[in-house]
């Protein structure tokens, strides 16, 4: 067992950190205030190959391992939660299912431009009536000659409207399973600009405000049969497999947010003086920082372990769920304490920590709430 990062990982981390400091950090506050998608940053990340890190080189990616990708999301999220999730949704939720379940034609057509960063990806599963209960899909896809006709809508879609390629899920029929009728769900790749595919509401969010969260609307949207991802009726499995990987990405985002808040708090408490000395000299501050740092370290080990599991194991849902659950709850706790240790200043938008606290909350909710992670973990324990 070796807890030392390999040299290429160290080098990659340095690259991500420099990019984050130079290109992302200066814009973080503005992106949050204006709620504008940081298109310029995305273009720069594409140039640097950040949008295809775990994708093999023959498909236009960097051919790195999941850990390298996790570190990229982590470093970006240290300065800007929005930028972290753009990369995570694109890579884990759109590139990964096409890489895992796509045909060679689909990979050539979609994965290559996605991995190169020429196109941006998104994932459409959630509906107004189907959040945690993903089986509750209402969107339908009906075969019609050589096409499928899709009708319905999706909500809360990260990278919505900004993305060019969408992996979406729809009900194609019903199947008997253990004597019960359940919905047969199938996955499709849908491109922006397909007639009948439009965008609805843009959500006004508490945090990750530069992340573009949109409703997708399908009105008699025709998709050719060759855009079916995986097999007919395999959609639910594809969604769950994809989310296992996505959870590692969100765990990395949560970890990054917590680390960023901790870094800033350590610096602030050394500078800020009350009663004639830095507040870092107060034992309460010291103990708070000790707790925060210990939890962040524990979260990091879980997240990295999950990334390694994805690289080496066939199944990694358990590790991913533990990493996401813990990292998200640590992010919430650490950012809340970070605001407290900043005092009144921490509550103003001039300082970064209030934004981090707002950004942290979503990590407990999206790509499976903390409660879902507990369901996954306990189900594995009680098998």
């Amino acid at each position, binding site marked *: 067992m070796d807890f030392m990062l390999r040299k290429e990982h160290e080098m990659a981390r340095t690259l991500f950190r420099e990019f984050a400091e130079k290109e992302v950090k200066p814009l973080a506050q503005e992106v949050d205030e204006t709620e504008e998608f940081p298109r310029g940053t995305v273009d720069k990340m594409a140039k640097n190959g950040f949008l295809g890190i775990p994708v093999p080189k023959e498909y236009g990616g960097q051919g790195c391992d999941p850990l390298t990708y996790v570190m990229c999301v982590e470093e970006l999220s240290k300065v800007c939660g929005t930028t972290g999730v753009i990369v995570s949704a694109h890579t884990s939720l759109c590139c990964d299912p096409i890489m895992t379940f796509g045909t060679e034609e689909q990979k050539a057509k979609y994965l290559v431009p996605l991995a190169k960063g020429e196109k941006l990806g998104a994932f459409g599963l959630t509906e107004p009536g189907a959040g945690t209960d993903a089986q509750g899909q209402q969107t339908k896809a009906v075969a019609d000659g050589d096409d499928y006709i899709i009708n319905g*809508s999706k909500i809360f879609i990260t990278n919505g409207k900004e993305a060019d390629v969408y992996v979406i899920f729809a009900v194609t029929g019903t199947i008997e399973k253990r004597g019960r009728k359940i919905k047969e769900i199938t996955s499709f790749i849908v491109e922006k600009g397909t007639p009948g595919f439009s965008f609805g509401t843009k959500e006004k969010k508490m945090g990750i405000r530069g992340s573009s969260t949109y*409703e997708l*609307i399908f009105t008699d949207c025709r998709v050719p049969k060759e855009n079916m991802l995986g097999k007919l009726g395999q959609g639910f499995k594809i969604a769950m497999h994809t989310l296992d990987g996505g959870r590692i990405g969100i765990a990395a985002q949560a970890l990054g947010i917590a680390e960023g808040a901790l870094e800033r708090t350590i610096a602030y408490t050394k500078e800020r003086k009350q009663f004639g000395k830095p507040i870092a000299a107060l034992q309460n501050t010291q103990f708070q920082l000790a707790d925060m740092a210990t939890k962040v370290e524990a979260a990091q080990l879980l997240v990295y372990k999950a990334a390694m599991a994805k690289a080496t194991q066939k199944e990694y849902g358990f590790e991913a769920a533990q990493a996401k659950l813990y990292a998200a709850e640590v992010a919430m706790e650490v950012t809340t304490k970070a605001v407290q240790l900043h005092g009144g200043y921490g509550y103003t938008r001039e300082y970064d920590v209030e934004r981090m606290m707002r950004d942290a909350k979503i990590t407990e909710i999206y790509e499976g709430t903390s409660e879902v992670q507990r369901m996954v973990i306990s189900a594995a324990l009680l098998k």
Partner: protein
Amino acid sequence: MNLEEYKGVYVFAQQVDNIVNSIAFELIGKGKDLAADLGTEVTAVLVGSGVKDLADELAEYGADRVIVVDDPELKEYRTEPYAHALASVINKYKPEIFLVGATAIGRDLGPRVSARIHTGLTADCTQLDIGDFPLNPIPGKEQKHNQLLMTRPAFGGNTIATIACPDFRPQMATVRPGVMQKREKQAGVKANVEEFNPGFTPNNNYVEILEVVKAVSETVDIMDAKILVSGGRGMGGPENFKMLEDLAEVLGGTVSCSRAVVDAGWKPKDLQVGQTGKTVRPNVYFAIGISGAIQHLAGMEESDIIIAINKDETAPIFEVADFGLVGDLNKIVPALTEKLRAEMAHKN
């Protein structure tokens, strides 16, 4: 009080501006059923000034007899002279049952008259039957037959009460408009008219009417509307809301919408029903082209009657709908509007 003296079913034939209100025909229709059970007849009581010509219309809808109280004092509705007119009719003719429409006028008039002649009144009835009281015999208590059993919703519609008035006559009820069925009109039937004028002497209970204002229906706050015609994304575009406006106009309702419609910029936010819009409880809610996400249902599932029109038979809205139509709203809504328009024209 000798209950045996009281005979016949009487209905108050409300008129305003010498136009008989539809409720009068509904009461006659119901009165015919009650009279048949009792082996008696229906008498309409027409009160007003210069209203004799209206009597035949009451006969066309089935009134066996019309008592006309015609006096200049009765030109416009005022509580005192009208109450005097009806109380006098009751004292003279001794009806067994007296029905009044639960309109604004009827709800004012009914209680006055019942207090004046000291009898029971059940308000806003939705069902009337002839039957036994008590419904099931109670040992040691006399069970009376041929009683008017008056049923009405109480506590905001959360309970249903059936009420009888066994010891006093007439048995009086105000009846909710639109519930009872009028009979088919028999054109050309002449009324058997009896004129009666108890004499009117203005007293200090006579109010003076300064002005009558005809209400012009402005846009109603959707939370106050009794009938809502609500459109969703399935409407396809803002221009198609004309269909809903037509339907709402026929029904005297108001147009509302789902969040998707507001987001698309088709309608203003103050018409939005749902979790982040307004919570409404109309008597009738039309959900047209609305899929019925829980966020929307939360704002309208308390409606008395929900009617859903949607092309997708698996839309969740059908789970809460009392009535559902699967099909193309562009065909259904105009057809429904036309049918209702014809029906309403017939009604008034």
